[in-house]
């Protein structure tokens, strides 16, 4: 007889979803760093090697240190997620694990490659010369892209399941892993997330230098700070318009493939043409309150004509409607709003650069850059809320309900509290640790010393 009683599903479902959302939301930021920070450091090293630019090389070294610490933490939070897949959603894994699992197996190879080459890259600062060292960083960047693809493809599959048939008892047969991974949603979800990762890291890194310049005006003329701001900011600013285009394609894809999700976050109640696009507002049971409505724009965006018929919630069975329309709607608007704000920031930089061949080192520009980092993170998290909450009540769109996937194990609320405490500590220590790395005077002297993957300092520093 069990001493720990099984708990009712409804109670477990919410706890499991919160736990998954929290740990995934935490990990995704570190995943962005793993995917995109190596590219930034390679850009800096490239500049450094080509122009014999010591400052650029110094930046690359500093960033590789930060990458090492954050990669180690991300590896841990990622491992936790692979446990959670089974611990929280055993019935999902039982039924569909063989359909999408290949994606994670492929991700394993990329992750391995990334882990190995990040170590080689950091070790290599002292042991591999010149351009050869730069090339040891290239596999890290490629593995980051590949890893992002294979994981996001699995999420896309949950939105657009394919690559199998169902037998009489509802279990998948005739599995085609490639078809599962290359589902219609992958086409827009993967580039959307990849670009998001580069934007989070680009704006995030730039914002650190912007904050430093705001705090001490002398740093505004320090070449290392200027370069540290400009390299990532330029990359992110160049990618922002591309991201807005991809996001637009993605929204149309969702309107086609997951009309319930689309109607949920756009707050469309009745199916028909001439749909109003609502900016902000609260979605009640039958209308949007306090929002700014632009008549016909929603139909226009979906089908390039106000005559486009958009499916409303009236067509969705009650028990298949996504929950929390207001949350979805505001999350979507937040993401799009921040996207356009970042586009404006990029435009500001481009305009100024065009006129003066410099970036505007004014207080207001630096303030905007300082905010852009947190903004990019918020936009990305909001996007994940839209796609994940928007898919509910399904874990696999149309095929399996989340409530049927959840574990019967007890004590999840307790675990949730523990996880929040543990991760809060982890985040705090990570920040302290990164600040210490940043404050070291001469990173060039002993790169890699005292780092994960790196050789330890010859003399313990105490």
């Amino acid at each position: 007889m069990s001493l720990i009683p099984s708990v009712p599903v409804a109670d477990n479902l919410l706890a499991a979803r919160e736990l998954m959302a929290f740990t995934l939301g935490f990990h995704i930021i570190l995943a962005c760093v793993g995917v995109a920070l190596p590219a930034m450091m390679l850009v800096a090293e490239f500049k450094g090697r080509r122009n014999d630019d010591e400052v650029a090389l110094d930046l690359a070294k500093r960033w590789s240190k930060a990458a090492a610490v954050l990669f180690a933490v991300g590896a841990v939070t990622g491992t936790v997620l692979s446990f959670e897949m089974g611990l929280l959603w055993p019935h999902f894994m039982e039924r569909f694990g063989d359909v999408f699992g290949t994606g994670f197996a492929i991700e394993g190879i990329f992750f391995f490659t990334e882990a190995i080459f990040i170590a080689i890259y950091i070790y290599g600062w002292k042991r591999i010369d010149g351009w050869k060292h730069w090339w040891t960083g290239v596999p890290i960047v490629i593995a980051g892209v590949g890893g992002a693809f294979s994981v996001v493809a699995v999420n896309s599959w949950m939105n657009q399941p394919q690559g199998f048939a169902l037998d009489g008892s509802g279990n998948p047969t005739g599995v085609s892993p490639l078809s599962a991974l290359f589902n219609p949603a992958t086409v827009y979800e993967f580039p959307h997330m990849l670009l998001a990762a580069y934007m989070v890291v680009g704006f995030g890194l730039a914002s650190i230098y912007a904050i430093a310049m705001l705090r001490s005006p002398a740093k505004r003329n320090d070449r290392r700070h200027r370069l540290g701001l400009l390299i990532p900011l330029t990359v992110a600013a160049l990618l922002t318009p591309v991201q807005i285009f991809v996001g637009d394609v993605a929204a149309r894809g969702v309107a086609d493939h997951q009309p319930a999700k689309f109607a949920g976050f756009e707050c469309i109640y009745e199916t028909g043409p001439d749909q109003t696009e609502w900016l902000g507002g609260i979605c009640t049971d039958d209308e949007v309150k306090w929002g700014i409505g632009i008549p016909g724009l929603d139909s226009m965006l979906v089908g390039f004509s106000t005559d486009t018929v958009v499916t409303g919630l009236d067509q969705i069975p009650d028990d298949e409607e996504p929950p929390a329309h207001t949350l979805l709607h505001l999350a979507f608007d937040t993401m799009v709003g921040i996207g356009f704000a970042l586009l404006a920031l990029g435009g500001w930089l481009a305009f100024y650069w065009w006129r003066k061949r410099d970036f505007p080192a004014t207080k207001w520009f630096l303030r905007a850059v300082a905010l852009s980092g947190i903004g990019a993170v918020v936009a990305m998290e909001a996007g994940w809320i839209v796609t994940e909450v928007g898919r509910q009540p399904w874990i696999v769109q149309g095929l399996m309900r989340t409530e049927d996937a959840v574990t019967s194990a007890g004590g999840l609320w307790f675990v949730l509290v523990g996880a929040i405490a543990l991760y809060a500590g982890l985040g705090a220590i990570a920040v302290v640790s990164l600040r210490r790395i940043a404050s070291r005077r001469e990173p060039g002297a002993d790169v890699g010393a005292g780092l994960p993957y790196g050789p330890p300092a010859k003399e313990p520093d105490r």
Partner: protein
Amino acid sequence: MSKPDVVAAILVAGATLYAIFGGADFGAGVWELLAARTPDRSLRQRIEQRVALSLGPVWEANHVWLIFTLVVLWTGFPDAFAPIMETLYVPLALAAVGIVLRGSGFAFGHSLGDVGAQRAHVVFSVSSLITPFFLGCVVGAIAAGDVEAGGSGDALGWIGPLPILVGVLFVASCAYIAAVFLLDDCRRAGDEELSEYFLRRSIAAAVIVGALAAVGLIVLRADARGIFDGLFDEGLPFVIASVVFGLVTLVGLVRGWSRALRPLAIGAVVALVAGWAVAQFPYLLPDTLTVADGAGDGGALTALIVVFIVALVTVVPSLALLFRLAQRQALE
């Protein structure tokens, strides 16, 4: 060999690699923990230094094998993965906590400096003990038949003689492998004093592992008769090989061999895991689910086999490069 059998072999290969490389990593943490009370401060620092030198660069790569094993399990054998997760969530969650703490201890162990680094070290070494113990409990509980196909089982069923014993055996094996690896590194680096230190510990660990394995057989006979019988039937060659490897390693330790020690210790572990796997075969979950019945769809199995081959082709050369760089560093 059928397709599910091939995937089962890949699963065992992944678990074996994790046992060796992850094991050496956990074991190093265990030795740090045991050295923590040494009054000789400089000795303690040298041990920490040695562990960092030997493990630093390969740390992450060592632990990817766990993720790999999990993924192969859920893709290849989803019907076994789900009940394992739903039944043994307590030790699994505790192992996951151990992994989080250990990884953070590792990540921040050197970048925090002074007091922070000290604390990170303590966290690292304590969780090095916890994690393999609970992973061992999971393996022991599966062997004891606590996990049933299609069931969610008894959440506390893993608290029994066999799981606990396997947990302790896992910790001891990790310590043994780590001691041999570290000893080898010390000898190559010409550090006589530390060599002597790890020599004594390698021998002690070898004896303890042997004793635990012997006790394990008695418990196994009582709690997992099928596997016990299997070990003395199809598994016998592996059991003998493991004992021989173990004894030869012991001889090598005493006689001061260097180069052969690592392969010998690895051989003992490989033979042990393989023997266990052969003894448990054809069961994934003893007595309720076989490899053939628990296998996922054929298309997924084929994909896994292909991915495994690609992994070998791409990962092994880069891993070799990394190990070489690390070894060179360890000698500096």
